């Protein structure tokens, strides 16, 4: 009885472990790609920001100068 019990739980454990590890690794690969794409997008946006601010400031000063004239 003990051996039957042990053999059956070993089969269940091995089959389940195969599906669990395979599914997890597959899912992880996709998720990491999405996360890293978002990180890259975020970094690009952050880097672009100071330039936009500088251009805006320059535009404001031009407007001020124009209105003064």
């Amino acid at each position, binding site marked *: *009885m*003990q051996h039957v*019990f*042990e053999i059956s*739980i*070993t089969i*269940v*454990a091995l089959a*389940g*472990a195969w*599906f*669990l*590890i*395979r*599914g*997890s*690794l*597959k*899912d*992880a*690969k996709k*998720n*990491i790609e*999405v*996360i*890293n*794409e*978002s*990180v*890259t997008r*975020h*970094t690009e946006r*952050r880097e672009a920001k100071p330039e936009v601010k500088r251009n805006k400031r320059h535009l404001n000063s031009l407007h001020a100068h124009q209105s003064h004239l």
Partner: protein
Amino acid sequence: MEKRQHRTWEYYWRAIKWLLGNLVFGLFPLLFMCVVYWCSDKKIGGHDIDDQIYEGAILFVCLALVGSVLVDVYLSNIRFNGAFRLVVYLWPVAIVGIVSLNYLLIKLGIIGKDRFSMHSYTSWIVFGMSVLYIIFVKSNLSMKEDVNYATRV
């Protein structure tokens, strides 16, 4: 400043740390008795340690941790795809089934009481199944949460 890229092993490492932290808290009475046993030159606590192990403390802590991951998955509204989704929900049922059957067979006197001790094959199988489930599902859950956050930002 360039933001760091994420790696898969970081999530697995986070899940391992979660597991270790919870194991320390869950098995605190046992660990405490082990410290007492060690400090008293093996004079006090040996019997209590054996009692706790033979009552199935380690297996029941494993069950509690697996249950906590399952409830986390359920409450997070995050759904996995394909066969992995099936395994995420069926694996804890299999663990509960094995522990219950083991308990029942011990109580009916069909298998020896040592089946709950850490010398037994069944205990190691349940322990291994729980560790695998916690590491792989908890890490994927953290990843999915980060994906949700990343797609929202």
